[in-house]
């Protein structure tokens, strides 16, 4: 997981499919953004099948993180700077 593993994160979904993570973001977060595969977040790149949804929950970012052997994890990381960066993409 690279740099993300060193951050303080909360796991919302674990060992999920990419679609399950996308659907969860769609159903649970009013504020969400569609990003491209390879979108850089927390010095890592989002690996995924478009459309890729990233949610905003207060000052936290909710995003999918995929590992080859363990499927996709939906993570929540508090980071106002990343939230602001996502909002500026509008």
């Amino acid at each position: 997981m690279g740099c993300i593993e060193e951050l303080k994160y909360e796991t919302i979904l674990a060992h999920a499919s990419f679609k399950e993570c996308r659907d969860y973001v769609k159903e649970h977060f009013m504020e969400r953004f569609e990003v491209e595969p390879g979108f850089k977040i927390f010095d890592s790149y989002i690996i995924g099948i478009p459309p890729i949804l990233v949610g905003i929950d207060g000052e936290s970012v909710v995003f999918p993180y995929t590992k080859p052997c363990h499927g996709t994890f939906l993570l929540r990381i508090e980071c106002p700077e990343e939230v602001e960066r996502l909002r500026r993409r509008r």
Partner: protein
Amino acid sequence: MDTALPGEGASTPVQKTALLLLGCPEVPVQMGIALYLAGRLEKTGTEVSVAGNPSVIQLIRVSDPDRHYIRRVMNLERAMADLIEGRLHPGLTVAFAHNDAGISYAATVRHVSGSPLYLIIFGKEAEAIAGLAEFECTKIVERAVHNPVQLKKKIDEVFGWVASRS
């Protein structure tokens, strides 16, 4: 005689390169097929790099200690970063997938790289997994887990390596 690779004309002036992106090594056929594919591609004059997680890299080093089949290995995250950042431009990419994550990696490659993409889908749920890959690529699908022979046959057909019977 080996034929030219699909998507690469005989008059292509640049060095032929290929990137093999391996998934989780839990399904046995992956490593055998990767060694076979790398060896065949190298025989066609293609410079092959293989990317995988640390376990994949160790499997390659143990299986092929003298690098007869796979000469260059790289960390999967590094390879993805280089593709995304435009530092890596393989002439063709072969992605291996037997799970949802493998398709996610292949979809990302499709999005960030313009090179021809071959997607080898295997494992017990090969057909279902193949249905997730709705992007442009050449799919090679076989429900192979332990025995690579049928999957190898399909790869030979797609890459034009079918032995002449005449």
